[in-house]
Structure formats: C-alpha cells, structure tokens
C-alpha cells in the first residue's frame, strides 16, 4: 500500500470508529484533496463529515480549535505546509495554549495534517520544510512519518490524542509503498523513534523524506565501501525520542543529522545540541548536520536538486562524519 493510501485508510477507519471525527479543508471533498489523500471519503461519509471550505485557512483552523474545545475531533487538511503560515496565530497562540490557559479544563484534540517538502518544482513559496517552526512550540505535538505503516499509525494516534497534533506528510513519499498493518487498533505511538537500519559505523538521524534518502545512501555506503550506517527515523519531532538516538550514537560514536529544510536554527540544530550533551563521552567526531542550501528554493529543476540535501551531498556528509573526506 502507498503512503497516500495508508493515510486514507487511517482517516476512513477513524471516521468509521468515532462519529466525532470529521475532515475539513480546501478541496477535500469533491476534488478528493489536492493530493488525493481524501479520495472517496465524501461519498462514503457525506458532506457533514467531509467538509469543503472556502480558502480561509485562519478561519477554518480557528473553527477546528473551536470544535475541538467542544470535544469534536476535527482533522483539518492544509493543502501544503506553506499555507499554514496564514493560520499561524490559531496554531501557536490558540491550539497549542488553550489547554494550559484554561487550567486543563478544556482540551484541544485538533489534528492538522499537511504535506511539506520540495522536489516538485513548486518554487520558493510552496516547497518549504519549516518543521521546526512548529516543533518549537510547547503544547503542540509534531509527527512526521517516513513510511506507509507509520503514516497510518501516527495519523490514527494523532486523531485519538487529546492534544493538538500536526501531522507532517511529504509530497515525495505519497507514492512510496510499504507493508501496512491492517488491524484498525494498530497505532504508532507518538514520541517514539524507530531504528530504520542497523549499523555500527555511523548514525544518521533523519525524519520524513530525509529518511528515504538516508536509507538509500546507507545501502550505497555498505555496497561500495563496506561501511554500515545506522539510520534513525525520528517519526516524532515533538516529543523527541532522544533515548533511541543516544543509544545509537553510543554504539557508533558518530552522528550525522539530516533535514530537508534550512539547517540554521533547524531540527538538526536541536539534535546536535542534544547529542553532544547526551553523548559527550561517546563521540569520536563532531556532530555533522546537513540540510538545504540557505536560500529560497529555486524553481529550475537542476537548481532545485542542487539546493536540496540530495543523495550526493548526503553521502559526502556521511564520509565527512567518518573523517574520510574533509568536513
């Protein structure tokens, strides 16, 4: 099953399980969603459970907060992560804070799901991965599945969670295939990382599409150089599972942190800080970081590829972490 189908299955199962769950957003009904995640759900569940909205992100994210306060389980689709900037106040100042500000009397079981990422020539304003803007905020949970199984398991966990959860999907993974547990009660716990590949020489820490890249590079390093990289798929950015990361670095003594977005103040910055603290005595080399070039993403295909943390750059960064090429 593809990542996209796994998300759809999660939505269908949760819509069927709990009548408080409803889906809303731009083009989610008749159009099946901008990236077809909600295909068929309008026919199956009707317009009260699958609601098309006007193009008013701040409005319908805010309405999601309101419905969630009443105990409904809204699942808001934002066409791409970039458009969530328009609703930032509702996410940061309201969804994330309402539980605390009302002394725990009301919860905000809101799910926002949205694809992020680059690689489809969608240019500077529509290709971003600013996951850290959201992972920065106490009160929000942020998950970023890299496999179809976790796409299903994490989205279901998010819908059942009593706190607001941002589910970061990724444009490039929608078509990736993988085994998906069909048990409707199978959940992926929020806040637990996964060892995606075992290794002894180096730990590569990644999330979302960077995991797919990291696995490809790890296979290449094994094939061509006999180097075994361990790949950690974070799955959750907040809460962050440092135990799994630290256990891996204690084993390999070297860490490369990768993200699709800009590294300055990014997810890899947070990871590097935590790894050096947790693994100070284990490290044989400085923690390396890799992300996108520090520029707005170009439109031309060749330039877009060059700016992203592509496999060639990732391989070079891995070799630098192993001190086999200059840093």
């Amino acid at each position, binding site marked *: 099953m593809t990542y996209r189908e796994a998300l759809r299955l999660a939505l269908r199962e949760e819509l069927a399980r709990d009548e408080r769950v409803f889906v809303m957003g*731009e*083009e989610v009904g*008749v*159009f099946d969603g*901008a990236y077809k995640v909600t295909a068929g759900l309008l026919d199956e569940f009707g317009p009260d459970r699958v609601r*098309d909205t*006007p*193009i*008013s*992100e*701040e*409005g319908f994210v805010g309405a999601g907060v309101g419905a969630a306060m009443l105990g409904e389980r809204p699942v808001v689709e934002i066409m791409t992560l*970039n458009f969530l900037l*328009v609703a930032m106040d509702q996410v940061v100042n309201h969804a994330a804070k309402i539980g605390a500000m009302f002394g725990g009397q009301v919860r905000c079981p809101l799910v926002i799901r949205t694809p992020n990422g680059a690689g489809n*020539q969608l*240019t500077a*304003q*529509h290709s971003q991965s600013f996951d850290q803007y959201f992972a920065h905020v106490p009160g929000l949970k942020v998950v970023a599945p890299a496999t179809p199984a976790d796409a299903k398991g994490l989205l279901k966990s998010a819908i059942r969670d009593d706190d607001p959860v941002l589910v970061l999907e990724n444009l490039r993974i929608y078509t990736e295939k993988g085994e998906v547990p069909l048990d409707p009660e199978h959940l992926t716990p929020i806040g637990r990382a996964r060892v995606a590949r075992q290794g002894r020489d180096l730990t590569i820490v990644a999330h979302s599409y960077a995991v797919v890249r990291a696995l490809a590079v790890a296979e290449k390093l094994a094939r061509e150089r006999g180097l075994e990289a361990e790949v950690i798929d974070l799955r959750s950015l907040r809460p962050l599972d440092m135990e799994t990361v630290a256990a891996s670095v204690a084993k390999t003594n070297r860490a490369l942190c990768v993200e699709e977005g800009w590294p*300055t103040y990014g997810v890899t910055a947070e990871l590097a800080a935590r790894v050096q603290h947790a693994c100070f005595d284990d490290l044989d080399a400085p923690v390396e970081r*890799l992300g996108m*070039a*520090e*520029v*707005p993403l*170009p*439109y*031309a*295909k*060749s*330039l877009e590829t*060059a*700016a992203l943390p592509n496999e*060639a*750059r990732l391989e*070079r*960064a891995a070799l630098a972490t192993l001190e086999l090429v200059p840093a």
Partner: protein
Amino acid sequence: MSRRAPAPPAPPAQALAEPASLEPWTLLAPDGTLAEGYRPSLSDEELLAAFRLMLLSRTVDQRAFSLQRQGRLGTFSTVEGQEASVVGSAFALDPARDWVVPQYRELPAMLRQGYPLTRFFLYFRGHPIGNQMPEGVRVLPFQISLAAQIPHAVGLAWGLRQQGSDAAVMTYFGDGASSEGDAHEAMNLAGVRRAPVVFLLQNNGWAISTPVAKQTAAQSFALRAPGYGFPGVLVDGNDLFAVHEAARWAVERARAGEGPTLIEARTYRLGPHNTADDPTRYVDPDELRARRELDPIVRVRAYLRARRLLSEAEEEQLRSQLMDEVNAAVAEAEAHPAADRRHIFEHVYADPPPRVRAQRERATAGEEVR
C-alpha cells in the same frame, strides 16, 4: 479615425442596489450589439489593439499548454474565457504611470504594461529573469501565494501618493482569494486610507473545483464594498466594454483622490485551474457548453464585423502574425542558457553572510552545495 465619445455615465455602484435585483452591468450583448445610447470610450484603434491582445492571450494559452504537456514548460494557469476582464480593465490604465499587481491569471494585463512575452516563457522554464521587469514596466511579478498581492497593492498605492504621483494601482484576484484574510484586511485598510487602488475581482465561478456558491453565501462580491466605505460595481466580465468603462471610472476616482473601488467582473473559467487540473471531473459539460457560447472573444469579434473594422481575412492574417510572435518568444526563451548553480545564491542577501558566501564559493567551484 473614430470620434471620441463623451464619457459614459458612471456604472451603477451596487451600494444602492437591492441584493435581489443584482444584475451584472452589460454594454455589449453576446450577439455583439451595444446597449442603447452607449458609445464606447475606447477608440476604434484602441479597440483593435484590445482585440489583438485578447487573441494573443488565447494563442499563448494554447501554445503554452502544449509546451507544458511536452515537458518544456512548468505548471501554469490559462486565461481562457477571462480575456475581456483582464484586457478591458488593463486598457483603463496608463502604462506610463499606473501599476498592475497581478495574481497569476493576468498575463495580458502584464503584456499591455510592457512585460515582454519572452519573460513569461522564461519564468515558467525556471529562469529568475522571468520575474524581473524591464525598467519602466509597472508590474509586480506573478503572485502564486493566494491573495498576498492585495495588501501589497494597497501599500504600493500609498507609496505612490506619498511620492506625489496621481497614479492608480489595479490589483487582480479571484473569487477564491476573496476568502483569505488578506483580502478583507487590504480592502479595509484601503478604504480607511482612501488608497488609489482598484480591486479587480475576477469571479470566474471556480476555485480549483470549489464553485462560487461554496465560496460565499452572498449574491455578489461587489456588495462587500459598501461595508468598507467605497463603491462596488458588478459587471459582466465577458463584456469588454462594461469592464473597461467600470475600470475607467474606478481609475478616475483613484486619480482624483476619491479612494478605492471594488469591481466584480463576473466571468467564467473555460479552461482548467492550471495545467495540473482536470476539470472534466467536476464541471458539468452542459454548463461548460453554455458558457462557451458567451466567449468574450466571440462577442467582440461580432461587434468588429458589424462595424466592418476587421474582416475574416484580416483576422486570419492577424492570427498567423500572433502565432509567429508567440513562436518567436518561445524560441528566444528556449535558446536562453540553462540556469547556473551560482544563481541559487543570487538576490538572497545584498551582502551575504559567511555561511552563504561559503556555500556559493563551493557551488561556483563545481562542488556539492554544503
């Protein structure tokens, strides 16, 4: 040479209209006949130039669509069906002083302001130069982020006033964008500050697959204007003359310091939302067929024929000229050297910080960007 007609009466501001009686203002009927007593303020020469631009736009749509399908152009939105809205309004502007602030479906307005067609093709081939305006071309680049250009237009209009200019700013957006907070906030600000801006809302019936009835419960977008303290006008957006007269009136108001105007040009998107969309999945074919009958180009053509301003043979010749013009622009764009990796780092910082400088140096040396 045609006689200059006296200025027509101001279009009916919907401020005073009963919602139930809202009908778009029309001056050119679908059969090409003029409303009784109306004499266009466009001269015959201007009218022929406007028709030429409408046809050029349609030619670009067709050529660009086929290039996109061949992988020679990125995703873009066609103008098809909205030529009267865009061209009629653009012809109310003086390119030597007025500004166009587009969304992404207003290429002909940009061309009239002096944006070179070659740059359109360069832009959708991924060249940064495609979004650069030649000196003196008063157009902001395509805005892909929905509705974000509307506040920019208000600020631009303020800036022009502050610089002592009597210029007007025409900003375009659609029925979908009207639901964004930016649209509301920009219109309110413009009203409060009497900014010299014309809000040209092209209601083309669709926001991707969302029909206008799911975008607003109101009977007209023009009705919003009184709430902001300025007039709103509802015009037939497939009527070149009605759009032009309404825009002309609004531009005059802006110049005279009377503040903004909202024009709802009610038109119809005959093509897809963009080249990644398949409207056959959600548009009723009968509706589309009926709307094709109201094609704005057909209407102007009927008028031109009746006035004997352009014969069938002359139009044939014009079409072939336009095709040559478009092909030349495509050839020029395709001959442009491929973008260089160093371009990634250009125009980000005037004085790049050390990290960006180091990345640029590596890229220049042909190494991987790190």
